[in-house]
């Protein structure tokens, strides 16, 4: 009896339904908590561009939310640097990964403004999201620019599937620290971004636009370079607009 086709078919169907119910049930129950965890993780990544991973690691989830609430304000701009205010778009809701599939001029570009505790007018730095392709899968991150809109205040990088010990090192604080203090515009005002070089162990401290590479992870490094260049150029209009007002303010 157990070998009959009907038995096999019915057995498989019943099993599928039971397991399916189990899975969708658990997804329903855990869903809200997962959404919270994802939102918290995003805030941690944004903050990661301006404060160290150790400091964030020491905070409880509530502290992260509170710090974010008090120190980050955000706007959304378009490719021309104009603020988008209609349609209820908020920077936190923009999904960079989904937006990435659209042509560059149709995406929304969130800007996270890091300011003094509870005082949005005293800006410390501007945090911009990044998204691109590494060697195996997507890479993303956030770059923080100082108020001169030229100096890198910090960067945080993450990846979906780079090689552990090689490309995956972009998540390490030591690699990310190499970007701090670099400039994204050259003397003539041309956007050159910051380039990660091939090979590791050379000293680029005198060069404003180059950082030491990661040995064995040149393609991931190139991915980071392309991502930086692309996203900084998408934000160029906004950045230039800001730096002009900064100069006028002087």
């Amino acid at each position, binding site marked *: 009896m157990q*070998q009959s086709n009907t038995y096999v078919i019915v057995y498989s169907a019943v099993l599928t339904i039971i397991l399916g119910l*189990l899975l969708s049930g658990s997804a329903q129950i855990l869903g809200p908590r*997962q959404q919270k*965890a994802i939102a918290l993780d995003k805030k941690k990544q944004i903050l990661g561009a301006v404060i160290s991973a150790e400091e964030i690691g020491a905070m409880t989830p509530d502290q992260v939310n509170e710090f974010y609430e008090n120190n980050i304000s955000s706007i959304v701009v378009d490719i021309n640097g104009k603020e988008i205010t209609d349609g209820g778009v908020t920077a936190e809701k923009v999904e960079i990964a989904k937006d990435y599939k659209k042509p560059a001029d149709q995406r929304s570009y969130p800007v996270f403004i890091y300011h003094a505790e509870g005082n949005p007018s005293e800006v410390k730095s501007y945090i911009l999201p990044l998204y691109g392709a590494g060697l195996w899968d997507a890479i993303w991150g956030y770059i923080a620019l100082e108020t001169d809109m030229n100096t890198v205040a910090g960067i945080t990088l993450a990846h979906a599937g780079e090689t552990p010990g090689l490309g995956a090192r972009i998540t390490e604080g030591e690699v990310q620290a190499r970007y701090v203090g670099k400039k994204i515009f050259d003397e003539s005002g041309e956007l050159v971004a910051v380039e990660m070089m091939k090979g590791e162990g050379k000293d680029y401290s005198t060069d404003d636009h180059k950082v030491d590479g990661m040995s064995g992870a040149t393609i991931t490094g190139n991915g980071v370079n392309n991502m930086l260049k692309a996203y900084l150029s998408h934000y160029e209009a906004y950045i230039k607009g800001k730096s002009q007002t900064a100069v006028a303010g002087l």
Partner: protein
Amino acid sequence: MSAETLEKAIEKKPAEALLSKRRKRIVADPLVDENPITVQVLGICSALAVTTQMQPTLVMAISVTFVVALANVVISMMRNTIPSRVRIIVQLAVVATLVTLVSEVLKAFAYDMYKELSVFIGLIITNCIVMGRLEAFAMGNKPYDSMLDGLGSALGYSWIILTVAFFRELWGSGSVFGIPVFDYVSSLFGPDFSLATNGLMVTPVGAFIILGLIVWVQRTKTGYVEH
């Protein structure tokens, strides 16, 4: 069946002790003599991939233990109903469900771990230890014994990957569970002294070397020879 005959039946066959000698062996055998990694050479891929640090390795070990033990119990309970022609796919469906549950729970309660381990948690499905135990044991034994068998195999797997991770994190990153042991030891010997970490340990090659050494030590002690 009347109460009398039922009593007799119980008298005739006294229940086996919860941890009888035979059952202890089911748990203990896979720890060393029948170890899934070092003797049966199963589950190598994850042993290489997740063992760069202790913490994710521990989460992986717990997840695998949960999946193997529970899958063994579930399949053992179903074993008399499973049509043999589709038994592999039935096992796979059960394992995949359990693994998805683990991954969903991690995503909700330990998101950082989920991010770090996501691919490898999914790959528990393909961990040969899981399917191996289902086919070799759970399909022909009672649920409780199957659970013990699953626990034994999972513990055998766990202690090996934790040992590998201990040495890889210590030598590769100079720390244990994220605590910077090398920095501390270096500071004891004055400011000019520093222990260097070995980048090779962070790559999968390092895992092969450590695993090889463990197998060597173990086989020297047990005298096991491959036939």
